[in-house]
């Protein structure tokens, strides 16, 4: 098909005009929020993203998403890109709490409120709000409940403590919370092995397998995240240790996050306790903070989600506050 220069120029102009129309329409709809994740390596973050987007939509806001794939330098650059896009607020999930500080300065310079979601930055004097679950306290509640169950059952216990990626402050806090209780109960529980899983399925599998091979009498297991539940199930099945509460050889098992797998395992009686971060509450805290900041009100720098521990005994009473239960219910309609 022959096309002359005039026709080409007219087509290009029309294309440019039509391409900008959706952006104009979006700008009239309300505020724009940047959701800046580092990775979607667990159901917690996938569901978190989904809740953040749906609640933004309820508020009439548009969302832009970025993901850094756990590269803090890239994420700091992405903040600059969002500043260029003139977003009205930033929800930020950093990889590293120290290295995220330059991103706060970038947002402050552009007068864009920045809210750290579930992972606060290292203490600094810049303007930000951080929403955080008290990981250490929630893990203390969780392991404390597990130790109480162990005491009731009697006997001695040998534990494997799975830790996440120790570059992630959440993983560090959960490890410390678990050790706070375990160290206070050394007469009851001996920590036979600590496994750094780096939030990686292969490393979790290999580390837990090795730990059980080295300590075949392990009968207590603490996991830092329900994202590792399926791997744990696989390893324990292979080792002949996957038994329900009340059955011979049951391994006392504590999870963390409160995702759909955590709910399922609790309801099927393979898991004994789960430490739950209240994701719905955290999103409400974040968006409430945005509204207050835009209205010129001052907001506390740290907003805490106290979370809770849920066990088989309290499952029916507390499950409505467990975000994983709602995901499970949706999938099992």
């Amino acid at each position: 098909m022959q096309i002359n220069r005039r026709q080409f120029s007219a087509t290009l102009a029309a294309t440019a005009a039509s391409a900008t129309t959706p952006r104009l329409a979006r700008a009239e709809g309300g505020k724009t929020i940047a959701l800046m994740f580092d990775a979607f390596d667990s159901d917690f973050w996938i569901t978190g993203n989904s809740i953040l987007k749906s609640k933004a939509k309820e508020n009439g806001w548009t969302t832009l998403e970025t993901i850094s794939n756990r590269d803090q330098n890239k994420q700091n650059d992405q903040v600059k890109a969002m500043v260029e896009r003139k977003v009205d607020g930033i929800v930020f999930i950093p990889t590293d709490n120290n290295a995220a500080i330059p991103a706060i300065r970038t947002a402050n310079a552009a007068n864009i409120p920045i809210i750290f979601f579930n992972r606060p930055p290292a203490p600094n004097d810049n303007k930000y709000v951080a929403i955080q679950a008290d990981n250490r306290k929630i893990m203390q509640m969780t392991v404390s409940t597990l130790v109480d169950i162990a005491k009731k059952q009697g006997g001695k216990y040998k534990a494997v403590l799975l830790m996440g990626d120790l570059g992630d402050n959440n993983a560090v806090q959960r490890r410390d919370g678990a050790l706070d209780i375990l160290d206070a109960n050394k007469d009851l529980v001996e920590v036979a092995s600590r496994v750094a899983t780096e939030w990686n399925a292969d490393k979790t599998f290999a580390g837990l397998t090795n730990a059980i091979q080295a300590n075949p009498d392990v009968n207590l297991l603490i996991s830092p995240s329900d994202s590792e539940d399926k791997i744990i199930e696989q390893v324990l099945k292979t080792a002949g240790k996957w038994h329900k509460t009340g059955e011979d050889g049951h391994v006392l098992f504590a999870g963390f996050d409160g995702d759909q797998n955590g709910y399922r395992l609790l309801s099927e009686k393979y898991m004994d306790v789960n430490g739950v971060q209240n994701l719905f509450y955290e999103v409400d805290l974040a968006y409430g903070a945005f509204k207050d900041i835009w209205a010129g009100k001052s907001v506390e720098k740290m907003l805490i989600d106290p979370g809770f521990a849920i066990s088989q005994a309290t499952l029916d009473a507390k499950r409505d506050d467990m975000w994983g239960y709602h995901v499970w219910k949706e999938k099992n309609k």
Partner: protein
Amino acid sequence: MIPEAGERKVSKMAETGGVLSSAPGGAPSRPMRALRLLLFSDYLVLVLTLVYVAALWLFVPEILSPTNLQDVFLQILPLFIAALGLMMVLMVAQIDLSATSIMAMGCVVGASIMTGEGGYLAGQPWAPAVAILAIVAIGILIGVINGVCTIVFDMPSFLVTLTTMMFFSGAAIWYTAAHTSSGSSIGSLPPAFLDIGYGGVAGIPYAAIITVVLAIVVHLLLTRTVFGRWVRAVGLNPKAAAISGVPVRAVVIGCFALSGLFAAFAAIIYTARLEAGTPILGQRILLDVIGAAVIGGVSLFGGKGTVIGVLLGVLFLSAVDNGLQLLGLSLSSVYAIKGGVILLAAVTDAIRHTLMARG
């Protein structure tokens, strides 16, 4: 009569020319001549970059805003330095997968020296200088280890650098945990060091000065020194180079040492910008470093590479990244688009080389 072989030669040329000609066996048309010029140009990657940016400008005009262009310029500097180092190794037909672990190890060691929270030289005015020397020393040392294992012990460089990558990644995490209460990174770095990240003199960023100096050094090394000729010779044919008297072992070790040195310089800039020594520094950019070099024309088979080519490769990758960031697309879209764009660039380059080889 024209001999059969000659006829076959003419028709084969016509067949090849026919790929880029609308008139079989005849002179190529004007658009085809332009396309051929473009395809065989050393600046094809630059043209692809400009076309990409122009296409994206229709959707995100901010891509050409002065602040965004300045941000992109500053972003590419440490990646360019790391890619220059990798180019040296690729030119001798080897590979260095440990560059990012060198960055991680160097940055946490350097941070532990100068951090205000219990650093070895905390509060001392010379702490940043000593930290920089330590980062550089670590880079060179790991590079030499890689080089010696590869060429002296005759081990595949893929295996050697993969294992050093794993070893020093783990060592960086262990070192960080041993030097902090939080265990995740080492902050509170002195302002004098942080200035390297975004500070400057007479309006020129320090990072840009460092980058330009290193680029000039590499360019002169490759084009004006005997060492540069040795590097190409070893890359093209190490046996022939050895017979010709080229000290192959010293050249390969030297290239690995340079790769480590350049990774160290990249680490210095990244650490200054992140304001922290983190054990996962650079963990995700290895493919960007290799991709930038290869897209920029550095041959994976050795013997070929230019500083300007690497710069264009880095520019292309950074433009792709920046555009996708501005669009704010979902992760799946980002991966698909970035992979597709890089694949297109690589296929275009491969087609180009095939056509050039056919003449």
